[in-house]
Structure formats: structure tokens, C-alpha cells
């Protein structure tokens, strides 16, 4: 696949090797007393909420354990392209030994760094490439959004749900599918409309999309991978329920906040950093959920009926102990064909590569 060496990436690699060597010459030699330099690079600003904040806070938590022995550096708002490649190389030349590349768009550049610097460990968000010192990581948001779907269906009067979503990549599609499947458990006829923003961070467009969905009678909204509270705040203004991922936005919607599918990356980061320091790090695809204490639902709305809440808790316990998966058949695809046969559960690999919508999603996938 993408990992096959050939003339092109050999030459590209060779030129990167030279440039890293040139940069590395000026970096001071590491000694045993030097702290481990951990660098986080993300495409949006570390704001008060959202994805960037979740990664940053988790690294800070781990840093607090290590104290002086670890030094955390954050490079925010970096476009996914040649600039990011240069900045990651610069960070490694400056002594970074543990790099967290916080967006799928950094994949090629981050992978080159991992190949050329075997002593550097790279964690890469949402990607699909793996190397001995390179792990892609993703959250099983679907486990939380399934529970949110149950709550949403109980509160929706119109039977129409809406979502403002970033990119139609499998990770986000999976979250949306689980949301619909959870909702259908309570109300089999429920529907979901999606606005694809093609941006992680665009407050103005997110607000417009929210208003458009509400105008189409959607009365529970899912702010999917939006690094701004715009959807949640606008939903409060328009009087409809909303929820989001990564970090709580309850302050932006005190009355209509449905809850938050929180990600706490600190257990994963702590384990990875420990493995790096012990020299036992092994690159592998990390797909983490409720059972790993990475995904958790918090700030449940008090408006959710007690009987529904009891059902939600029951399902959550099943997800945590592995006895329940949102992706167990029968599941029909949006186009009417069979997605998953009755009694069959999708494997992690199948979920990670999910590129179709379930029945009930009315907006076709872009492209």
C-alpha cells in the first residue's frame, strides 16, 4: 500500500535525512539528565474547548506526574502541509523525542520523521499508517454517540436530528452512524440530516449550519469534531438540544446541553510515554473507547426521562465490559442494502474503515 518503498519516496526520504542531519548538528546532544521533550502539534488553536484542549490537557496531566523529567511544548494552528513538515522537523531537531501529531493531515510528514528518526516516537491522530515507532490513535466516539442517540430520540419532538460535522472521514461517519443507531433503538423512524463543513474550526460557518438545520425542524444537534462551541451556543439561542465531543461545553448552553462525549487521552499518553522511556514502545493502531477509560459521557441533561436514563446506563455498562457493540447486525445501509448481517459484529478494522451511512441518515455522503 502506501508503505512500499520506491524511487520517489526514497529520494524524498534521502533529502529529509540530509536536512535532519543538518538541523540535528546544532541540537545539543541529549544526556541522561535532560528532560524528555514532548511536542504536540495541532491544526486549530488550543482554545477553551474541543479537540486541541483535550490533547493538551491530557499531556499536561502526564507532565504533572513527571515534573522536571518531561518538558511539554505546543505548536498550535498549524496548517496541514509543507509548513507542518518543516515545523515537525524543527521540533525534532530541537530535541523532541516524543511527537504527538494531532491531525490526520500530518500523516505523510509525521511518518517521514518516524522513519528517519528511529529514536523518536510519534503518535498520529486518526490516521491509518503504522511503523515500529509510529502509532495512529483514534477514539471510539461511537460508543458515546450511541448513548447520546438514545437520549436524543427521547427528547426529540420532530423525530429529526441534525449534525454539523467536519470531514466525511470514517472516524466521523462512524460517530454519526452510532448516533442514529442509538436513536433508532428508542424511535425506529428517526432521521438524521448532516451539514459537512469541511473544517475543524470555522465558527461563522458552524453557526450558519446550525441555524439551517433548526430551520429544517431538527431539534437535537450533534456538534461533530467542531473545535468551537458555536453549534452548542447557537443551539441554546434557538432553544434546541445539542451535544459535542472531547470537552464539555455546558457553560455555553446551560439550558439545552444534552451532554458531552468526553475524551481523556491521559491513560493512553501515559502508557505510551512510559513505553517510550522504557524502550519498549511498539507502533500499533490504538482504537480506544469506554473500556480503556478514554471515552466517557459526562454532563447528562436533567431533562432526559428517568426510564431512558436507566436504559442508557445499562447499555453503557455493556459497552464498558465488552458485551455490547453499537455495530452488531442487522444494520441496513442508507442505500437500502445490507450493511451488517443479523448477529454479526463489525471488527475494529471494519469500523475504522467505515465509509457508508446507516439507514436513517438522509444526507448522502459527499463526493
Amino acid at each position, binding site marked *: 500500500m502506501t508503505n512500499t518503498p520506491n524511487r520517489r519516496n526514497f529520494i524524498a526520504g534521502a533529502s529529509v535525512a540530509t536536512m535532519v542531519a543538518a538541523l540535528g548538528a546544532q541540537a545539543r546532544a541529549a544526556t541522561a539528565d535532560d528532560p524528555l521533550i514532548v511536542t504536540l502539534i495541532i491544526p486549530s488553536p488550543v482554545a477553551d474547548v474541543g479537540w486541541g484542549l483535550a490533547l493538551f490537557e491530557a499531556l499536561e496531566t502526564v507532565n504533572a506526574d513527571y515534573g522536571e523529567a518531561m518538558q511539554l511544548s505546543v505548536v498550535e494552528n498549524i*496548517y*496541514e502541509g509543507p509548513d507542518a513538515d518543516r515545523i515537525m522537523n524543527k521540533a525534532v531537531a530541537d530535541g523532541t523525542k516524543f511527537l504527538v501529531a494531532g491531525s490526520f493531515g500530518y500523516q505523510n510528514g509525521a511518518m517521514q520523521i518516524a522513519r528517519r528518526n528511529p529514536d523518536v516516537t510519534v503518535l498520529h491522530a486518526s490516521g491509518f499508517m503504522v511503523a515500529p515507532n509510529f502509532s495512529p490513535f483514534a477514539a471510539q466516539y461511537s460508543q458515546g454517540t450511541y448513548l447520546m442517540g438514545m437520549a436524543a430520540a427521547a427528547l426529540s419532538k420532530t423525530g429529526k436530528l441534525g449534525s454539523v460535522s467536519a470531514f466525511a472521514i470514517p472516524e466521523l461517519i462512524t460517530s454519526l452512524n452510532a448516533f442514529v443507531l442509538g436513536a433508532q433503538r428508542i424511535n425506529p423512524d428517526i432521521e438524521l440530516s448532516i451539514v459537512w463543513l469541511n473544517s475543524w474550526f470555522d465558527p461563522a460557518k458552524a453557526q450558519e449550519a446550525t441555524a439551517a438545520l433548526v430551520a429544517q425542524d431538527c431539534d437535537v444537534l450533534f456538534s461533530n469534531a467542531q473545535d468551537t462551541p458555536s453549534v452548542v451556543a447557537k443551539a441554546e439561542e434557538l432553544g434546541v438540544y445539542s451535544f459535542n465531543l472531547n470537552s464539555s461545553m455546558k457553560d455555553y448552553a446551560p439550558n439545552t446541553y444534552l451532554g458531552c462525549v468526553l475524551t481523556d487521552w491521559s491513560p493512553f499518553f501515559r502508557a505510551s510515554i512510559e513505553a517510550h522511556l522504557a524502550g519498549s514502545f511498539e507502533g500499533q493502531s490504538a482504537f480506544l473507547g469506554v473500556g480503556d477509560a478514554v471515552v466517557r459521557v459526562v454532563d447528562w441533561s436533567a431533562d432526559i426521562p428517568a426510564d431512558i436514563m436507566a436504559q442508557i446506563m445499562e447499555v453503557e455498562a455493556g459497552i464498558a465490559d465488552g458485551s455490547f457493540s453499537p455495530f452488531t447486525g442487522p444494520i441496513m445501509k442508507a442505500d437500502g442494502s445490507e450493511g451488517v448481517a443479523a448477529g454479526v459484529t463489525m471488527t475494529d478494522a471494519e469500523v475504522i474503515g467505515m465509509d457508508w451511512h446507516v439507514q436513517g441518515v438522509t444526507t448522502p455522503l459527499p463526493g
Partner: protein
Amino acid sequence: MRLPKLVRRERASLPVLIAAPVLALAIAALGNLVLYAAIGVNPVAVFHAMLIEPFASYFSMSEILLKAGPLLLSAQGLAIGFRAKIFNIGAEGQFVLGAICASAIPVYMPQASGPWIWPAMLLLGALGGSAWAAITAFWRVRLNANEILVSLMLSFVSLQLLIYLLLGPWKDPMALNFPHSVRFQFDALLPILLPGTRVNVSLLLALLVTVAAWFFVQRSFAGYQLEVGGLAPNAARYAGYSQNGAIWLSLLIGGFAAGLAGAAEVAGPVGQLQRSISTGYGYAAIIVAYLGGLHPIGIVFSAFLLSTLYIGGDNAMVSAGLPIAAVNVFQGSLLLAYLIAATFVRRRLVWPQRTRA
């Protein structure tokens, strides 16, 4: 209330000419020092990262050249139009179209090989940029639609087109729905100019375009016509110079240069078509063009200055832990101080005399 007026100097005095930029730099630096003290960042580390580190090694200097290339190319094309008072604000969209058109070859012929591929991609990209700018020119000439608005709006359209292609027909089939094309084959990548760096032959093209722009502006009749049209539209009309011709020429040249820059970016450091191919090069090129006084030689300096500032800003985030907002403040205040200084080099402040009624 009486306001002072800016009066053009007969000639700029030499001490002022030297003192102004130095003073501007000093004032901007001082203002930012206060800011760094307030947010608790070591100012020495910041200035070292911003102004010294970009020149500290062969590789980091080469990165300045790499980043200056697209700025230089796009700005040279824009400046020709700006001199004729044709305001093409849509270089960003023309850049994106250049990238898209260039990518058509490796996307549809991923197995093709031969030395013709990258030159053909650059040509296709430049023509694509021109074609995108032609839409603006057409509506300006036909309906007198404001070219600022049309070209700017078309930039947003171009992004939608890019995303459509990446999510649909041009998506890499192996990449699990991630919005990017296949990685380009070796022959679809520009040859490296400086070994061990990412600087490619597009830098030579940018310098070639600079020379061509200089000849066009200084030596050609068409350039003269455009200049007269910009400075004195009535005189140009009286002389029989076609206003429509000026619009077409300005936009086509601007689109050609920006499209070439976009093609060089995907065939250069990016190596595939993806949604983030431009870091706002098309908009930054407007600053570069004006900072360089709309003069082909001045633009060379301003392109390298801005490129250095961008890379220095990135360095400051990595090495000195400066937040992105403070980086933007530094870059903005430096440009602002320089523009104010440049104004006072050419003009002086005159307070109105009190006159009796």
C-alpha cells in the same frame, strides 16, 4: 478641528531613508517586548527564534527560499494588475485552480513516466489559473461587475471545487475516504535545485518571471499602456488605449502567475493534491506586492522578507513557546510600522496654518 496633512516631499533625505526602517523595526520590537514581558515569555529567545534561527543553517535558509517562491510568483503577477488599478484579490483561487489542473496529470495517469510530466503540469496549472481569472475579467468587461468581489468570491468557489474532487472523483482509493489524492509519481515531482533541501526548480521560474515582469513593466508598450490606464484613465482613453484590453491582460497575467505557483506547490513540497495546499499564499501575495512598492525588484525583497517572518514566527512557537496570537501580533506590527515609516520617507506632516477670516 484642524487635521494635519501629508505632503509629498520634494526628495527624501538620505538620513531619513536609512533611519525610517530602522526606527520602525525598533518601535515594533519595543512594543512586542512589552507584550512578551506581560505574558511571561523570554524575549531574547523569541527574537533569536524569529530573526536569527531562519539564517542559522543551510537548511533553514533553504526553507526561506522554498516559502518565498510561491509568494514571489503570485505577487509579480498581481502587481502588474495593481499598477493598472485592476484589483485581482482572487489569487488564492487561481492558485488552487493551478494546483488542481496540474494534479490532473498524475491523478489520471499515475503510471506515466517521462521528463515531460512536470513541465506539462506547470503549464496546465498556469493555464488553469488564467482560465479562473478569465471568469472575473469576462464579467468585469461584460457587466462592469466589480473585479474585487468576483475574484474574491471565486476563491471560495475554488475551495469547494477542490473539496469536491478530493471527496469524490480524485480521492485516493487506498486512503479510507481521507480527502487527498494519490501521492504523485516521481516524474510528476519538480527536480530539486539545492541538494538536501526541498528547494526545487520553481524558484528559478519565479526569478525568471521576475525578469519578465521587469521587462514588461519597464520596457514594453503593453506595460506602458497599463501604467497610463492606472495613473490617468482619461489620458489612456484619449490615447485610444483599450480599457477592456487592460482588464483582460491584468487578470490573465495575475491568474497565470498564481496558477503556476499553485502547480509548483503540489508538484513540489506537497507531492499530492490535498485540501490544505495553500497557507493563504494568494492573500499574502497582495501584501508582498504592495510592500515591494509594486516594483518587480522591490517585490523580490518583500517576498523574502515576508517568507523570513513567517518561518521565524513558526520557529518562535516551537523554540520559544510563543502562542500563535503573539506571533501574528509581531508580524502585523512589524509590517504596520514599516508601512508608516515608508509613508514618512516620501511624505511629511504639515499642520495647517491658522488663517483669519
